[in-house]
């Protein structure tokens, strides 16, 4: 019953919105192929792949990638077990204790990343630990654990508790019930949580900025290149990262759709 005009307007609006969303990314990616010292598309000089060669030969970039990957792996290793255990704990609690713990567990998601970085930096410095990527790892864990916990909790709420009770009644130990029933059930969530945690860590800038010491990560590398001597090499890196992100986002969304309850 909506009028044709209203429908036309909103469709046009949506198209504009999508253009707004993707045009900047397309421009940025295209500029990676322009043979111009300043990254742009408007005076188009010539097609070139030299920025990719430069990127490939850039040792600082590779150092950043290595660091980001290492921090990402460390974060996943810490965050998945802690998130899973605290999710299990929260799932068994009721009442005021549960609400209180829940609030504490999601609070880090509402805190700006710079403040997480600062508090981590000061806390560990007081204990005599200097800044560096180990502090970036801890700082990132403090809020990425919240995501893992929420994903675990969401899946646990759909777990048929009688399965566990039956296992315990039939003589399984608590460890067996966890290993044979709860963990297999949680597996898909834990896998997606691990991927998400890695990405969150890899993308992190704010928390890393304050805790890194003098170490370099991919995001720090990009930011410092943009501020001091930007060349289309940054765009080439952008293209690679966006490519990886699109693949990951599509796989993640399709997977999530397929393991959502019917």
């Amino acid at each position, binding site marked *: 019953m909506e009028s044709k005009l209203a429908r036309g307007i909103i469709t046009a609006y949506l198209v504009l919105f999508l253009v707004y969303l993707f045009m900047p990314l397309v*421009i940025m990616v295209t500029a990676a192929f322009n043979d111009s010292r300043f990254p742009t598309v408007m*005076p188009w000089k010539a097609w070139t792949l030299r920025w990719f060669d430069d990127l490939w030969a850039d040792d600082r970039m590779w150092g950043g990638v290595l660091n980001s990957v290492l921090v990402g792996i460390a974060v996943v290793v810490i965050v998945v077990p802690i998130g899973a255990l605290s999710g299990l*704990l929260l799932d068994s609690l009721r009442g005021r204790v549960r609400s209180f713990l829940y609030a504490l567990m999601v609070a880090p998601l509402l805190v700006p990343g710079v403040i997480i970085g600062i508090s981590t930096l000061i806390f560990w410095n007081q204990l005599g630990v200097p800044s560096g990527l180990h502090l970036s790892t801890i700082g990132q864990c403090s809020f990425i654990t919240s995501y893992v916990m929420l994903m675990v909790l969401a899946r646990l709420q759909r777990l048929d508790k009688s399965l566990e009770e039956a296992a315990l009644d039939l003589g399984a130990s608590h460890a067996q019930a966890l290993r044979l029933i709860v963990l297999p059930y949680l597996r898909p969530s834990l896998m997606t949580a691990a991927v998400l945690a890695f990405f969150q860590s890899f993308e992190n800038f704010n928390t890393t900025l304050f805790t890194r010491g003098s170490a370099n990560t991919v995001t720090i590398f990009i930011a410092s290149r943009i501020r001091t001597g930007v060349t289309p090499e940054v765009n080439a890196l952008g293209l690679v990262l966006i490519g990886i992100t699109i693949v990951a986002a599509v796989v993640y969304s399709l997977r999530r759709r397929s393991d959502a309850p019917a």
Partner: protein
Amino acid sequence: MADCEYGQDRHCHMKDVLSRYGTTLTGAMVLATFVWLVGMVILPYLVMVNYSFRPNLLPADIGTDKDHYTLDNYATLFRNEIHFIVFLRTMWGSALATFLCLCVSYPVAYYLAKMATPARTATLLLLLVIPFWINEILRTYSWFIILAYNGPLNGVLRLLGIIASPIRWLSGSNGVIMGMVYAYIVFMVFPIYNAIETLDRNQIEAARDLGAPLWRIHWRVVIPHAKPGIAVGCITVFTAAAGSYIVPAILGAPGTRWFTEIIYQWFFEGQNWPQGSAYAFLLLFLCIVFVMAMMRLFKVGLADIAR
């Protein structure tokens, strides 16, 4: 187990957990939660706040008469006019970016939730997820290219004859606000979409059949239902904007800094960590006030926010 459902008694709940997981596992669960919440969240914040009330001392002066609690670090914000203006700008700019995101996102969210066919909604959601995942720095950087003085936006406008000479887009806070709206808009679309999606279409039909004009259907039916989503979107965008370092660093003009940049300066250029901590706490306080105000205004709880 049944009487535990009603109980508020802590021991009863612990017993519940114990009977479900046994001593060892329960111990591991409590320990992991403790390490996370106390070691990574509560203690670091407490230490930071404590630090913010301390004077910035040379190592030799620690433990002497000069080593006492003080409000000086907080007073600095009100004594230093430039910093105070930056604080206000951060507050106002974040609020403006939040409001713009809300205005632009609402029609998109409504279309996705109630007007598009399910297949089209699925495709569009998948499309929207992509910028959501792409690094904030790269999204900001793309506007750095577009808005450059000799960049494509000025180029196209000149080609079309709309402007005679290029416009300096990256002056004042313009670039920062534009960049923030772009960087955080997806944080607004998804929660509002999720909220509107649960609205029964019959309510909209009924309002329409009773002759309500379009704006009134939205004002009286859709928006009230979308409140939790709007609150979540606003909270996410505001805290992201107020706490953003990279958007102002890339798109800000030299004279218009953001509060996070001042904090960074205290830490790494001024080497005055207590002062930086005080400013960090003020920023956190600003965000907390905003979150509380939104939760009050839209009557939502923490459980609605973290989804």
